[in-house]
């Protein structure tokens, strides 16, 4: 049986032949970097509480701070190195969302500030907002109906 006989066989052959992602190493890095980012958030959270802010305000400060740090690191061309090392460890925390906003904004500056920066900013973050906000509206409507 030749691998080039049919797409099905070729697909299976390529799957076997292709190198796999080093999943153990990736998961280990994602675990400790992801955990560390959350802990930085937690330290900021405790600091806000210590300063007398309530829980909601503290959470918001945590988000804004981590977003600010992630965007700063993106702007000085460092975040993608962290992302390459940590994978989901820096993508899944709110830092990944911030990076997904700033990276196309920087990239498309050459196409102008309105249709370049302004529009492309949401190429990755847009879907997140669409699905997140839509889900929250549905949750709200359901809450309205059944509570």
């Amino acid at each position, binding site marked *: 049986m030749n691998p*080039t006989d049919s*797409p099905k066989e070729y697909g299976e052959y*390529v799957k076997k*032949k292709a*190198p*796999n*992602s080093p999943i153990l190493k990736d998961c280990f890095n994602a675990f400790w970097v992801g955990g560390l980012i959350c802990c930085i958030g937690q330290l900021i959270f405790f600091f806000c509480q210590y300063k007398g802010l309530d829980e909601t305000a503290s959470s918001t400060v945590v988000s804004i701070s981590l977003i600010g740090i992630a965007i700063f690191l*993106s702007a000085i061309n460092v975040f993608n190195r962290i*992302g390459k090392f940590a994978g989901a460890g820096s993508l899944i925390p709110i830092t990944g969302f911030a990076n997904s906003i700033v*990276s196309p904004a920087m990239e498309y500056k050459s196409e102008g500030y309105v249709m370049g920066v302004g529009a492309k900013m949401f190429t990755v973050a847009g879907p997140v907002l669409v699905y997140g906000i839509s889900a929250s509206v549905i949750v709200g409507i359901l809450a309205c109906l059944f509570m």
Partner: protein
Amino acid sequence: MKKLGKQTLQLDNKPSILNTAAIVGPKELNGPLAKYFDKCVEDEFWGEASWEKAESKFIKETVSTVLGKANVSSSDIDYVFAGDLLNQCISSSFGMRDTNIPFFGLFGACSTFVEGLCLGSVFIDSGACKNVLCATSSHFCSAEKQFRFPLELGNQRTPTSQWTVTGSGAVVLGKSDTGPYITHITPGKIVDLGIKDANNMGAAMAPAALSTLCAHLEDTGRSPDYYDAIITGDLGYLGKDILIDIAKTKGYDIASIYNDCGVLIFDKKKQDTHSGGSGCACIATVFSGYLYKMMKENNIKKLLLIATGALTNATTSQQGESIPGIAHAVAIEM
């Protein structure tokens, strides 16, 4: 000129490759072939405001370098065949717009360089043209921007992904008593074996390379041993292994004479390029910089150059289409 078999043209008037030039970017500068290139540019913007402008500058400067090296003025070039990866081939057309040379813009994805050699050598072989210019370019940043993700996005590249070569390669074809000569061309068919992963171009293109390789060998009646070297465009490490494997199933053992430009241009371990290089400039710079010199120094006397291309774009891959591959071959002999 004579048609051999189904796909191959034999060129009797022997179009000669008068000279070549290659200019590459910062990553290639740190690669193993750096010393063979005419120029390595450290700044990926090359002083321009955008990567697209920089890529046009790459092709423009490479063309003026090759004209200087071949000692041919641009008014003596009959036609130029050029192409690149950016939408509507803008790098080549913008790079060439001030040259006043009749222009053919080509698109064959990463196979464009050899597509240009095929067409250009037929124009020379016809006897109607004196000099023809072939050039291609690609740029890592502009290609990522168009096909994949923003540069600063913190994502991981998959192990099968390839690194688009930044740079441009150009050759002048003409009549000369000295080689190397283009003796045969074998334009390829589109081959699609259903690979959908846009980060695994090597696997998508390898069947096309096999199809063109087999067609060339059957049409010319040659065996792989006839050639000192068989070099593919940008299959990368995985694609190279696949081609060696699937060529065996057709009865051709090419392992000892075969290599791939995507494998040659980067140091996989040191440069973290995963499956190797790709892009229109991959085969263009490796041939123009390295292989041409190897031929001139008689280290390679008979070369089969097969450029591979993935005929896809961001829209088709979002629509779930598979990736059709293509490969064009030219036989170059001293």
